């Protein structure tokens, strides 16, 4: 197969390989190609000296130019600050409503808000903001502490049951666990709450629970069960349930009186970022 014989037509030696009767000429490479090959090796050697290249056991060769991707990131972040300067300055002075009404500012705030939300809020509320059991859905029209721009901004600032001095705070008692109500009363109340949301319930249990509701629950959830956003007391008449909609879920909530914690973000973000985040959440919740 590999007989290196010259080709009759050109007189050029062949590679000696044959494929279906076709042989390949072994024309010489141009010499400049060889020089480029050596030049490439020289460039590689120079690169090792100038740039970070070889890994060591604990470190790596740093290169005499001092190039560092980490340093580049710092520079790029500072450049970003400069680039955002003008928009960020307008964000500082504009009110939340003005930001949402101005198309340009709103687009900027949404972009900033989205990235901040993804880095900080998505852990609990999900990347799309729909939450999970025990974590509020930020995309619907149901708000524990109010869904206006100001309300959302304030909630982000101070948190819920956080260590901020002005934190939003309320605590539902653990009626069952702390033996404030009997097990039968908790079961009756469960039926009452089911009835409040417009679902069929045990009428006798509802009747028995009515006076209990009037003494124990009405202060926060209101006489008709529509809740109170000032205290973060959820509306019991709608179809949205933070801790689940089944009888077992509702029973467990009355028994244990669970309440989640959201940290205050005031120390973490500058005021412009807080505003952007509030506008982003408000806009994507359909805007109340």
């Amino acid at each position, binding site marked *: 197969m590999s007989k290196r014989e010259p080709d009759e*037509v*050109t*007189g*050029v*030696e062949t590679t000696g390989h044959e494929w279906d009767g076709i042989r390949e*000429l072994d*024309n*010489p*490479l*141009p*010499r*400049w*190609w*060889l020089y480029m090959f050596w030049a490439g090796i020289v460039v590689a050697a120079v690169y090792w000296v100038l740039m970070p290249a070889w890994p060591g056991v604990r470190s790596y060769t740093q290169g005499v130019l001092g190039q560092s991707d980490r340093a580049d990131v710092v520079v790029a972040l500072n450049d970003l600050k400069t680039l955002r300067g003008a928009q960020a300055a307008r964000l500082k002075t504009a009110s939340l409503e003005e930001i*949402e*009404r*101005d*198309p340009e500012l*709103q*687009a900027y705030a*949404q972009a900033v808000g989205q990235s901040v939300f993804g880095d900080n809020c998505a852990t609990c509320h*999900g*990347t*799309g*903001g*729909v939450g999970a059991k025990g974590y509020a*859905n930020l*995309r*619907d*029209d*149901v708000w524990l502490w109010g869904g206006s721009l100001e309300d959302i901004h304030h909630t982000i600032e101070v948190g819920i049951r956080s260590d901020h001095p002005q934190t939003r705070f309320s605590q539902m008692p653990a009626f069952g666990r702390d033996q404030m109500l009997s097990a039968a009363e908790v079961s009756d109340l469960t039926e009452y709450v089911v009835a409040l949301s417009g679902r069929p319930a045990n009428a006798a249990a509802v009747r028995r629970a009515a006076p209990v509701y009037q003494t124990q629950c009405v202060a926060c959830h209101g006489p008709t069960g529509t809740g109170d956003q000032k205290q973060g007391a959820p*509306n019991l008449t*709608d*179809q*949205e349930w933070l801790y689940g*909609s089944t009888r077992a879920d509702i029973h467990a909530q009355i028994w244990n009186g669970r309440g989640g914690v959201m940290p205050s973000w005031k120390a973490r973000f500058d005021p412009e970022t807080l505003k952007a985040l509030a*506008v982003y959440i*408000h*806009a*994507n919740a*359909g*805007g109340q």
Partner: protein
Amino acid sequence: MTVVIDRTRASAPKHEAGPVSAAARARKSADPGGGLYKPRAPIYPKLVHGRWRAIKWAVMIVTLAIYYITPWIRWDRPGVLPDQAVLVDFAGRRFYFFDIQLWPQEVHFITGLLVLSALALFLVTALFGRLWCGYACPQTVWTDLFIYVERLFEGDRNARMRLDAAPWSLDKAWRKIGKHAVWLGIAFATGGAWIFYFHDAPSLLHDFWIGQGPVTGYVFCVLLTFTTYVFAGTMREQVCIYMCPWPRIQGAMLDANSLQVTYRYDRGEPRGAHKKSAGWEGRGDCVDCHQCVTACPMGIDIRDGAQLECINCGLCIDACDEIMLKVERPIGLIAYDTDAAVEARAAGKPAVYRLIRSRTVFYAVALVVVGGLMAWGLMTRPTLDVHVLHDRNPVFVRLHDGAVRNGYTIKIANRTFQAQTYAVAFDGAKGAILKTPGDRASQDVLKVEVPANEVRAVRVFVTLPPDAITAANMSAAFVVTAPAAEERTETTFLSGAANAP
């Protein structure tokens, strides 16, 4: 693919042992022992005069003029839009070509242009051989220009060969330095002109010299200065032979009926020196003067037949015609001709030229179809472009009363030069409520203002009351209207109704 047609063997056995291709000849002269690498054999093309040389000068002047002048043509456009006729505006994400303005989304027009260019190249090659290589390719044009400069400083072929062989002297030094200086100047002007296609030319020219130009401008200027100098000055035919893919592809475009620079061996053989007193009976017209070889910028012998190295420039035709006139034989011993015609004449039959062949017809039809599609696309290009992106997470949100809300991002591209107010309507289930952040909810249409020549993305939330939801996946559409344009974009309204609790 070195095509060597051995036409000389039967009639002139003395050439059998001779070099038959540039590659073989170069290796023989430079590296008689054989080896893996081959040095470049210097080529000293001799100046010729004649029809093809004149055409080549004209094409060179026209193409260089187009290249250097185009960025300086002004074209009035409204508002803050750039007033440069041809401009690739990367920062503004637009491509301007006189009255045509393309957005990045319309890059298919550029693809179409490349397809058109390729088909035109195929057609021309199938009909007339590698005219692109010989006349219009930048490598050819700039090499020709550089050889012209070389000739100004060092003289024609013989003077250049003598100069290169001579020991270093003051005369040799200034000629060499002068030549390279002018080469570098042309190379710099080439790289410098390139960057004007990407920025406003007059302001860039100013900024460039005071050091305020963009970094990419300087980088590309230096890069193209370097490549122009190296490719046109020192590498020349090496680029065509070793770097360019086109010589390999051209084999598929050419056939026996393609016009190419051809040595008419039927007339030329048997070749040999000719004494003035001797007659022409029993011999060919080729007097073996080697003028075709000395004129060739690729350093080949066209009498070896069509070959990979030949760029079809026709300079050997002019060189040969000069000699034929001197020896008082008809011109055209070397000419644009087809293999089929030469073969026919050699066999004593009349030559037949077939321009219309299945491949040329196919290339021409494809050219017309693609060109027609492009023209139609450009003329019916909409001034309004709407894209609707349904939110992916969450795909829908259930509200307190059981209503369902879907979020959409609608991108409206206003390709006119005036600000437009678009009416956005939802065409789907009845009772839909539209809401965009910063605006009141409405059952009607939303008004969206988009500045001239820009895209705006708006978030639109559509809420359907519980009784309007009939399926988990309902088809719907957004209808965006402006006084002079309307676009309907289909989308879906998702509710998960099928698996709702």
